[in-house]
């Protein structure tokens, strides 16, 4: 799990162009959206693409993103459960 979280940190920084961020800056248990990283709805869509591209997981309803991407940890848990 911790390994996956570390990997996700790097992937998120890359796909969301969080240039000012280091992996260490992201708290795996802090909310990703809202104040935290300043992410918005487009970033959520970008994370949906990331799940499909890197982990083969397809999300049909963008509303599901809110729960899955609540924190880095919930995202990692979702990947672990759903990866084929």
């Amino acid at each position: 799990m911790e390994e996956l979280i570390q990997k996700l940190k790097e992937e998120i920084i890359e796909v969301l162009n969080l240039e000012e961020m280091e992996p260490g800056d992201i708290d795996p248990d802090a909310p990703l959206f809202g104040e935290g990283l300043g992410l918005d709805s487009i970033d959520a869509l970008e994370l949906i693409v990331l799940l499909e591209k890197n982990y083969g997981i397809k999300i049909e309803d963008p509303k599901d993103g809110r729960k899955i991407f609540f924190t880095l940890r919930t995202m990692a848990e979702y990947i672990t459960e759903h990866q084929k």
Partner: protein
Amino acid sequence: MTRIVVTGMGMITAIGKDTGENLESLKTRRHGVGSIKLLDTIHKDELLAAEIRFTNDELAAISGITDGERYTRTSLLGLIAASQAYESGIGKYGDTDNTRTTVVSTTTVGGMDKTEQYYRDFLESSKYSHFVYTHDCSDSTRQISDHLGIRHLNSTLSTACSSSINAILIGAKMIKHGLADRVIAGGTDALSKFTLNGFNTLMILDKGHCRPFDASRTGLNLGEGAAYIVLESEAAAKKDNKKIYCEINGYANANDAYHQTASSPDGYGPYLAMKEALDISGLKPSQIDYINAHGTGTDNNDLTEGLAIEKIFAPDIPPVSSTKPYTGHTLAAAGVIDVIFSILSIQQQLIFPNLNFSRKIEELSFEPVRELQQAEIDHVLTNSFGFGGNDSSLVLSKY
């Protein structure tokens, strides 16, 4: 004060290749949304669209040009609609028009359809290299101007889905301030893989038929089409004894300044555009008889547009409907298509139904018009909102 009137109009959409056919479809609930047949896309079987069921060769035949293979689909659609507008408002086209007639056209995809088809060929041979030049957004405007014989200014603008309302806005201003005698204003957009895939990644395409203002709505259907209107000053139109379809009574553009794609939660930009268009028209909100809404069917648009409508009109909200379930969302052409529908509404004293509606949005107090309605219509407000927070509204009045 120069009054601006509409003296000509023309259109082609998935529900008809001219204004008459469009009107007939609107009256008989015949929509144009269905499975994708002409566009070669991997989404053929999973997504619906409002496709115009003519191949490019057939479109060329309709527009009467012999070398159709030189034109992109966006240009062909534009040519058809613009020449209808020219014929209905100005006369026979094709000879050199030495008057100060201006074309203000809009598109979001430009010649993308041909670029998609021949992108790889561009590198290997010169067979299709003329389509490198038609890729440009402004090239379709040039082709339309050439086709109509227009020698005065032509200009292309692109502000996403509100584009063609902004063309009318700029055209009206040009006449008011003496830069042109008449303006052919409108927009054209062909379906392309570029937009279909793009909107698909934004997850705002409904896999079924779009349901504007319905509680269960999940997105829009893309469409293709083109429409143009002829704008003139009232004095010029009267001097030439022109038939006047309606008056452009108020217009406004504002920026929501909130997010690249989403409207602000209370729809402040849409509110500003509607309010300012009303202010310019000098009409009271209670004088608006019908609102032809932008109503795309996305979660965000319909809610925020609805809230903005309420902020201006509540408690007496005029009849509202979105005609997107008929034509799909035609992007740059959407605004001017809605303008022509609004003009038809004034001419026919009809309110066109908002198809596919069954359940009201909880946060809103009103529901859209479901059935074709006869009504006394003197003033119509129509909206067009685009990505980039670009929001525009027009007030059209019976003349």
